[in-house]
Every structure is written in C-alpha cells, then in structure tokens.
C-alpha cells in the first residue's frame, strides 16, 4: 500500500522504483475481474492495461477542487459540516494562520494591558493637571489651591522651588478635565506680588502614600512647617543639614534624613518651629550642600517621632 501511495504522489520516482512491480501485480489481479464485469469482454495486452492503470493513478490530485452536487450546494449546514472536516491543504493552512494570528493577538493584548492601563491613568492625570509658574515667595500652597478652586475641585497642589529663579513653579491637579481647562484662563492673574503663568502640565503629580498623610489637625499644622528636600549629598549628615537650614531659615525642631550609601543622593524632611521658616526654605533650591544642589518643596507628610526617641521639647 505504501508503494502505491508513493506511486500516486511522486510519479517519476515510482516509475523507476519497485513500485512498478506492485503496479504490475495490481493490474494482473484486477484484469480478470474487469473482464468478468463487462458484458463484452475485451482482451488487451498486459502492457497497455498496466500503462492505463499507472496513468489513472498518476492523475489523482489531492489538491483537486471539491465537487458538490446541486442538491448539496443549496444546503449551508451540509457545507459547514463538510468544511469542518476537510483535510485539504488550503483549509489546513487557513487553520494554522488563524491559530497563529489569534496567538499573536492574545499575546499583544496580554502584554499591553498593564502598560496601557497605567499609561491611560497617567495620561488622564496629566490632562487634569496644570503647570503654574512665576509664583512669588509669599504664595502658599493653600493660597494657590484656594485661588484655583474657583475653576473646579482641586485634588492636589505642589509648589516647587526653582533652582534658576527666585520665583517658583507649581502643579495643580483637578478632579476633572474641565477644571484644568478653566484654570488656563487664570494666566496673568496677580497672585501675591507677581502675575502667574498657567500652562497645561506635561507631567503628573505622584500621589503620596496615604499612610504618611497627616491624620489630625495638629499634623496638618506640622506639615505647614515642614519641607521636603531632595538631591542631598550622600556624605551629608543630619547635623550638616540641620546646621544649614537653621542658619539659613530659622529654628529646626525635627529632621529626618533618609537614604544610605548605596543610593547616589539622600532625602531630608525638615520641620521648622515657624511656618515662615518653611516658606523661606523654598528659596534654598539650587544652593549647593556638600557637592550637590538641593531641591526644596513643601512636605505633604509630617515628621513623626521615632518610637525609640522621645519628642524633643519645643
């Protein structure tokens, strides 16, 4: 049987191989039956009979187009059933292609989902945030938030010291896009002693870990006296930072220096005795402490006492 299959598949090799022998045997077997079936038996040379059989087999084409009788063509259900079980090459290729495409689609979706989700959230946050610049030193975050609350509900407000200017810049986040668009019309408004500029923001405000937010009115008051300092030289000590801010801005009541020798810079939270000192500290952005220019921002979190240390008396 295998030989016969090969004969049908590859005609050139079959003729040269032993398949021809099988062909001869087959023709010998079938010849008497053919004669008996015919009403008029005809005697033919064995060679001619074999040649016809070989030619017949050689023409069997597995890629032949299917033939559907007229009564079958009108039945869609039957067609679907037939298509489902056809083993022809074309259908097999289609199945493979579909499978491959589906896999790619799934993989793409799986890979993109987390990225797309966080990206979408970030883009939404950016759309709801405006960038405010040319803010003079007398303006506080509460004051700025109060002004912009006329455009919509203010979710967050951050004032940052500008290392290159005595004026500051801020980011204000609203609860919806409309608030951010309305805020753009406040450009040029006099806040403090200087008109501010309002532009769409290109970055989002990162939310503070809720566990670090002030839990009471006292802690909120502490926040107003606290600044958050980044890009601190890793070789600086708490005493260095304390001395610096005490001499530049005023009395320091608490200080927390975060980080270790592994990271290139450290972070400091500095609590002053008076809110005015914290506001003045924003001017220290850009001043070199150790070997790095520091950046100062109002802190969103209070400096809480360590359990191992008793609170220092004020």
């Amino acid at each position: 049987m295998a030989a016969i299959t090969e004969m049908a598949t590859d005609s050139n090799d079959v003729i040269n191989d032993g398949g021809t022998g099988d062909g001869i045997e087959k023709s010998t077997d079938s010849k008497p039956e053919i004669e008996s079936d015919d009403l008029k038996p005809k005697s033919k040379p064995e060679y001619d009979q074999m040649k016809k059989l070989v030619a017949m087999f050689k023409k069997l084409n597995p890629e032949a187009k299917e033939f559907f009788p007229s009564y079958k063509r009108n039945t869609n259900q039957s067609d679907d059933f037939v298509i489902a079980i056809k083993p022809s090459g074309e259908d097999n290729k289609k199945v493979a292609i579909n499978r491959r495409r589906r896999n790619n689609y799934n993989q793409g979706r799986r890979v993109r989902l987390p990225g797309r989700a966080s990206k979408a959230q970030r883009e939404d946050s950016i759309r709801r945030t405006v960038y405010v610049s040319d803010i003079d030193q007398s303006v506080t975050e509460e004051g700025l938030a109060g002004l912009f609350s006329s455009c919509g509900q203010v979710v967050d407000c951050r004032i940052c010291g500008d290392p290159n200017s005595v004026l500051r810049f801020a980011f204000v986040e609203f609860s919806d896009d409309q608030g951010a668009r309305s805020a753009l019309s406040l450009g040029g408004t006099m806040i403090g002693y200087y008109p501010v500029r309002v532009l769409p923001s290109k970055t989002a405000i990162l939310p503070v870990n809720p566990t670090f937010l002030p839990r009471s009115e006292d802690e909120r008051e502490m926040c107003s006296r606290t600044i958050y300092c980044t890009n601190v030289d890793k070789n600086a000590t708490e005493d260095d930072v304390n001395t610096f801010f005490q001499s530049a801005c005023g009395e320091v009541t608490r200080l927390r220096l975060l980080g270790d020798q592994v990271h290139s810079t450290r972070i400091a939270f500095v609590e002053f005795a008076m809110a005015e000192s914290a506001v003045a500290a924003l001017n220290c952005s850009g001043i070199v402490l150790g070997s790095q220019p520091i950046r100062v921002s109002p802190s969103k979190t209070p400096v809480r006492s360590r359990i191992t240390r008793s609170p220092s008396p004020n």
Partner: protein
Amino acid sequence: MNRLCFFNKVVKVARGDSPPFDLASLPPKEQRDLIGETLFFMVEELEPQFAPKITGMILELDQDKVLHLLVTPKAFKEMVKEAMEVLAHSFLQQMKIARGKRC
C-alpha cells in the same frame, strides 16, 4: 433528467450499447456536472465524509476512464480507496509543512 435515467445512459454509452451522441451532445460543463452528480452519489456510499473531495479528484481524470469506473464496481472501489490514501498522504505532508512553518 433524473439521476437513475442518466446513470442508465452512462452505462449504455460505456458498454457501447448506445451511440456516444447522447452524452457528447451536451455542453462540456453540463456533462461534467451530470457525471459528477452520479459519481458523488456512488462515492458517498463508500466515503460520505470526503465525498466532495474524492469526487473532485476523480473528475480530473480522463472522462472515458471516469465512465469506465461508473460501470465497473470493483475498479471504482479501488479508485476510491486509492484516492483516500492519496488524500491521507497529502494531509500528513501538510501537517509536516505547517509544523515546520510554526517552528
């Protein structure tokens, strides 16, 4: 023309009882369709699932050989069996190709 009547005509033509004029007078496409329907009916008895494919394969052979198969049950069964083997072999080849492409 119903199937049975056509079948009888085909048998007569193949056996030489009737002049080929009856079949040859039809347009080629109509000839193929009539032969195909008769052939499909017979193939469906042996291989109902793959009848359309096998019928298509056999119809590509010479018409006189196809007519010969219609009146020779033994040869007809052998041909259907052979077509199934060719089809199965081709299917296996397609599987190998698909697997190769996938890797």
